[in-house]
């Protein structure tokens, strides 16, 4: 697996969610994803960035463009030092929200991306990694 | 792999007098000079051109005195040179005796051609590397034809998997045929929505007469498609819902209660006209 490019965005203010979307849109375009897939990735990123801002007391988003023999991909890591998610399985269920939201962010991001993993603990906070691939 | 075996790979050149007469040497030279489709080049162990056939001049544009003594990386693209490909090719041929590749190469005037290249290591009886024989074929025409065929078949295939046609001003039709797996339904959604917005059609007829069976996944794809069509501001009329399919849909618990469905395409078309407030002649009205 080759690393083609990478970068990161700090998520401190609410408007940083917009910066995350713009950064991800540009990066996803670079590996030749179609407009629908780009929209999927950007939408998932928007959900996860808002969670970092709203529940994780801020943090960061790191993006990586990857290349293997058969595919190019984009990997996004959302990291915060917040309180963590007590029950990840529950948080991944459609409609579960502790913040009066639609409870659609985490399960939605999972549906929109090819891969997603969530790590969380009260000590280290929450890390969500998502990936989308395009076969070449 | 031991040293002896790797050394023995490649073509072994035997001293002339033990193998071939003057006459056969001449014949070989005549053969090389008259082959038109192949550029035949001899390189020294470092990759410098030492011998150049007339066909090589024709294919690559260099005259013998312009290229002999130069490095064979002159035939590579700048990208290949930058990545060290010429050296890798020589190393591969030296190691395995032979190296073959199909790739872009560059002529003297800078134009590119699609080449089949075979590099053969030339060794003496003791296994010492004398140089390399290089045979290059210009396959640009074949490549172009292949690309064209590939492009055409891709278009035909796409048409066959999800043909979306505008049947009337304001109405697009997708006759679905065969199994609707998730990749196809993805294509269906993208193409259908694109056509709807490009033609400003408020009604989409999705005809499933040609879909043999429906399982839960397929039904979900259909429901998703119908939802997405609504989001862009159009309506779906689902047609070709045969008795067996209707039974399956009910048994699977798929809720299509707020989707207009009809058993035949003709009936669906009438509904579509109605939605557009188009008059339908008395005989064909519901």
């Amino acid at each position, binding site marked *: 697996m080759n690393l083609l490019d990478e970068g990161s965005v700090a998520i401190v203010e609410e408007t940083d969610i917009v910066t995350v*979307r713009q950064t991800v849109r540009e990066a996803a375009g670079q590996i030749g994803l179609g407009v*629908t897939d780009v929209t999927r990735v950007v*939408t998932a990123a928007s959900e996860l960035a808002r969670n970092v801002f709203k529940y994780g007391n801020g943090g960061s988003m790191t993006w990586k463009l990857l290349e293997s023999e058969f595919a190019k991909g984009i990997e996004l890591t959302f990291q915060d030092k917040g309180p963590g998610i007590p029950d990840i399985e529950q948080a991944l269920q459609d409609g579960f929200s502790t913040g009066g*939201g639609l409870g*659609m*962010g985490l399960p939605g991001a999972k549906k929109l991306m090819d891969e997603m993993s969530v790590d969380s603990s009260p000590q280290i906070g929450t890390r969500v990694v998502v990936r989308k691939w395009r076969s070449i | 792999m031991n040293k002896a075996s790797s050394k023995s790979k490649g073509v072994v050149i035997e001293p002339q007098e033990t193998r071939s007469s003057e006459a056969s040497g001449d014949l070989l030279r005549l053969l090389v000079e008259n082959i038109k489709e192949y550029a035949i080049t001899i390189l020294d162990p470092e990759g410098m051109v030492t011998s150049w056939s007339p066909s090589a001049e024709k294919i690559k544009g260099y005259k013998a005195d312009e290229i002999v003594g130069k490095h064979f990386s002159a035939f590579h693209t700048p990208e290949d040179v930058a990545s060290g490909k010429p050296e890798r090719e020589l190393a591969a041929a030296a190691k395995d005796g032979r190296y073959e590749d199909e790739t872009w190469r560059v002529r003297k005037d800078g134009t590119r051609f699609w080449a089949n290249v075979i590099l053969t290591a030339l060794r003496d009886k003791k296994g010492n590397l004398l140089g390399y024989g290089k045979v290059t074929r210009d396959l640009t025409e074949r490549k172009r034809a292949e690309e064209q065929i590939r492009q055409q078949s891709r278009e035909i295939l796409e048409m066959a998997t999800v043909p979306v046609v505008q049947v009337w001003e304001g109405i697009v039709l997708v006759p679905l045929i065969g199994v609707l797996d998730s990749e196809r339904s993805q294509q269906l959604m993208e193409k259908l929505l694109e056509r709807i917005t490009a033609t400003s059609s408020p009604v989409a007829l999705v005809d499933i007469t040609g879909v043999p069976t429906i399982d839960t996944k397929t039904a979900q794809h259909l429901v998703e498609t119908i*939802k997405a069509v609504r989001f862009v501001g159009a309506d779906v009329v689902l047609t070709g819902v045969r008795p067996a399919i209707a039974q399956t849909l009910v048994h699977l618990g798929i809720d299509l209660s707020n989707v207009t469905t009809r058993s035949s395409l003709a009936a669906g078309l009438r509904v579509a006209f109605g939605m557009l407030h188009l008059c339908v002649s008395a005989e064909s009205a519901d």
Partner: protein
Amino acid sequence: MHRETITVIKVRGVLMVTMPADPDDATISALQEKTLEAMEEYEARGLILDLSRVDTLDSYFARTVTETGKMVNLMGGQTIIAGMRPAVAITATQLGLNLAFIRTALGVDQALDLMSEEHPV
């Protein structure tokens, strides 16, 4: 600051609101405020939300849109969402968004036609 403007105009007794391409959360919540105020001020009979420029519709944005639609309905007006792009529509369905109770139209023109058909002036 990314703050973008929301354009609100009144045509044929209908309020037309155009959303910017990539609004931040503050701009999105201003949408609700501004729209409801304008509905009252202009005594509009309906709201057309033009989403044709929008390239990302996430759950926060969608929730504000549906809520606003419901509020406008309560105030006696009708809401139509117009011009959602194909890629946005596909993503929205996959995300699981539900825009039930809200009508949609291909574009602003079609939305205006729908309004006049059902609620003639």
